[in-house]
């Protein structure tokens, strides 16, 4: 089984471990992820706030390339990339004129019917059914599943999981033996790209999330978005300062957790790369 793969910038930079874990996990289930050749920036964070045409043209180019390279489905692990690609696909399908003008600016025509999967949809579709037979080390920990904002929003476009109270990560974690905690911060804002400009706000917003997870006894926070991860993990010193205590709850990707459960070596999943050490697991 071959699927197209769109890493986006994060997975080649701050979220290398996410990339490594997705790439390590797929072959275990007989899936080959092939990078879309010549992919470009999805336009997240900045483009859609500044220039609508650009924010549609950037993902459209990647979608068109993927289509050209013969993929029916592409996996987009980064929640922000996924969101931009899905939104662009929706907007362009809705407006024929807009699609035409975008096609002109990317100098390519395309059908715009490729299936875009985020990492949870990918796992649900190709891995979930086979997890139980592959599990070698049950992931017997209390975990807080944190979805962030982009994975399930906007609901009318993404049409995946329950927007206010998603459960897909919880179900997956349960499947590999974990106990998801019941908490109210599943989709609270982590501060996102304010990480650079207003680190203090991120410390506060992410701090509330991390603190609540820790207070409720979570041994790890499970995420599926590089941005959430970097805010909850990399900003931990600022978070600790804000909440006034040292919280050592690690933040790990869903693919890392499943990878551990099916017996992939921690180094191959990039677990050593986190700022908050994952020794406890």
């Amino acid at each position, binding site marked *: 089984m071959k699927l197209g793969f769109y890493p986006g910038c994060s997975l080649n930079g701050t979220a290398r471990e996410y990339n490594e874990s997705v790439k390590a996990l797929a072959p275990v289930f007989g899936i080959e992820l092939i990078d879309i050749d010549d992919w470009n920036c999805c336009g997240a964070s900045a483009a859609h706030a500044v220039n609508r045409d650009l924010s549609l043209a950037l993902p459209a180019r990647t979608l068109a390339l993927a289509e050209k390279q013969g993929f029916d489905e592409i996996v987009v692990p980064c929640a922000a990339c996924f969101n931009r690609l899905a939104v662009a696909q929706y907007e362009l399908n809705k407006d024929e004129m807009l699609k035409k003008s975008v096609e002109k600016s990317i100098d390519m025509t395309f059908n715009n019917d490729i299936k875009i999967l985020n990492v949870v949809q990918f796992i649900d579709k190709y891995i979930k059914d086979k997890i139980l037979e592959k599990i070698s080390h049950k992931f017997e920990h209390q975990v807080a599943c944190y979805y962030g904002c982009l994975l399930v929003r906007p609901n009318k476009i993404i049409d995946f999981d*329950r927007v*206010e109270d998603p459960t897909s990560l919880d179900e997956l974690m349960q499947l590999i033996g974990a106990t998801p905690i019941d*908490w*109210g911060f599943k989709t609270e804002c982590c501060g996102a790209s304010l990480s650079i400009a207003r680190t203090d706000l991120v410390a506060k917003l992410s701090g509330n999330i991390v603190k*609540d997870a820790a207070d409720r006894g979570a041994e790890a926070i499970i995420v599926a978005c590089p941005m959430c991860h970097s805010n909850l993990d990399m900003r931990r010193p600022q978070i600790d300062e804000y909440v006034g205590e040292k919280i050592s709850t690690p933040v790990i990707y869903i693919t890392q957790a499943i990878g551990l459960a099916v017996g992939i070596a921690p180094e191959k999943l990039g677990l050593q790369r986190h700022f908050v050490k994952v020794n406890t697991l």
Partner: protein
Amino acid sequence: MSKIGVFICHCGENISATVDCERVAKSASEMEGVAFATDYKYMCSDPGQSLIKNAIREYHLDGVVVGSCSPRMHEPTFRRACSEAGLNPYLCEIANLREHVSWVHEKSEATTLKAIDIVKGVVEKVRRNKPLNAIEVPITKKALVIGGGIAGIQASLDIANCGQKVILIEKGPSIGGHMSQLSETFPTLDCSQCILTPRMVEVAQHPNITLYTYAELEKLDGFIGNFKATIRLKAKSVDYNKCTGCGLCTTKCPQKKIPSEFNEGLGTRTAIFTPFPQAVPNKPAIDKEHCNYYQKGKCKVCQKFCPTGAIEYDKPDEFITEDIGAVIVTTGFNVLKTDFFPEYGYGKYKDVITGLQFERLASASGPTLGEIRRPSDGQIPKKIVFISCCGSRDPAKGIPYCSKICCMYTAKHAMLYQHKVHDGESTIFYMDVRAGGKNYEEFVRRAVEEDHVNYVRGRVARVYEKNGKLIVKGVDTLLGAKPVEIEADMVVLATAGVANKGAEELAQKMHISYDPYHFFAEAHPKLKPVETNTAGIFLAGACQAPKDIPETVASASGAAVKAVSLLSQPTLVREPIVAVVNRCAPPMFSTCVGCFMCETICPYNAIEHEEIKDRRTGKVIKTVAKINPGLCQGCGTCVSFCRSKSIDIQGYTNEEMFAEVTALLNK
């Protein structure tokens, strides 16, 4: 050769100021088929009408055209005058020379010419008009009221007090509806049960009212004045003739942990139960789904203890058929449950409750006997948060409308809470406070000013539990969108009022229309608020849209009057503006080919199938459409839809309309 009389009215100067009325009358007198034409200053006045009547007699007129104001104004007047002179009233028509000519044009040649044209068009129509007779339909003098809440109770009592018979059916074991669940009512804070229960008893005792509880409408056939209702009497497993309502069975039933519907799940009941102590009828019924005997085959404890031997297991549902003249639908509404709201915990937090549940907590007959205690641990909440517009006015949730009652009952809840928990602190998150109604705004001000309820304008994003507290995260938009976080002991959601379960199916059974939210649709939002588009079926109460008690009672009385005014007539008289399928000589019988396209588009189900049979052999020759004049409202859609041009509508026939259009254009 027809003999039409044309009467041009000056309407004082309203018409004659811009239209040369004398010239119009003169031109009319030269039109084909016109036997007499004149003009007069005030045609609607007594001498004016006499003028018409005398002309009819003198010239033996067989048609009358009055050139005057809009037919919506004086058509009935002139038709009555004609009728008094012995002319069929439907041979009189109005040419609208005031609203459509003199008032909208300047004085000019063109204006007078237009008036002449219009008169000519109508003359040509009247020449082809047929005498019509008002349609008489018999009426069964009995009303059916569906739903025993306050709307059904009020409507039944009003009709019964007018001396008409009423059948009231209620699907639950007792009448009373949502009102019986309420604690105190806004804006007077009088006890709901105290004002309701005497009426419930009155219903049960009224000689003109037949009450069927545990009953549902199975089928409704027929038409206005002549409905046939099939009613399912669900088996109660208790013989009400023998049962004395002593209640011994309900104390002995071993199934004691069933969530009570009356207490909105905050209390429990037994499998054989009366929903509440003041229930009418105050006799129990067995809930088969929870009864040990029905589920497991043994128990029969209630039968063993019943002193009168009233328990009868395994009796099937009964069906009765009743002839009915009018129907009033009062099936009420419901509120969304807390599990509709993922952001407020998806129903998993015990201390997040609905407004209706709060009513039960505040009610003296409720599970806490009127003390405000939170469901999880029975503690008295010191901090309580009310969230209004839960679901309502939120298109994302599929409910764009305002539920109307929540602003008021939330203010009332906060007030009741403050009255009962003196050191308590209550906060209401709101979008707007809509307190339109007599003494409503004053009531809300009282909550704010006297009871110090804290109103925060903003939405609540999330409610979650932490260390035994409910964390309410919201925003105060009046303070520059400042985030607000409250550690509450209990949260009350003013959940949206929605149509009752099964409303859609009921509407389809009765062929009444409903809106996208399954509330029943009135015939006209302003001028026919209690009628439906199906003649003889009326609406009252919250089955139309969320309504408060005064509004519900008013609409119930309104619907009752409509029903009574129908039932009190000896026969039903209707305008003969109805569609007719043509009939002609054998072997054709009718040009109708029986495609029944008309049946698919008729909004009133007035199209019936008629089999034309050979008189001797009884063999069906052809099946043709037939229009039930009792149901037809005369829209004429079938006329233009008919592919073989076999349907025509009286008063607006093809012949008449084509003649009018042609005449307007022919100079």
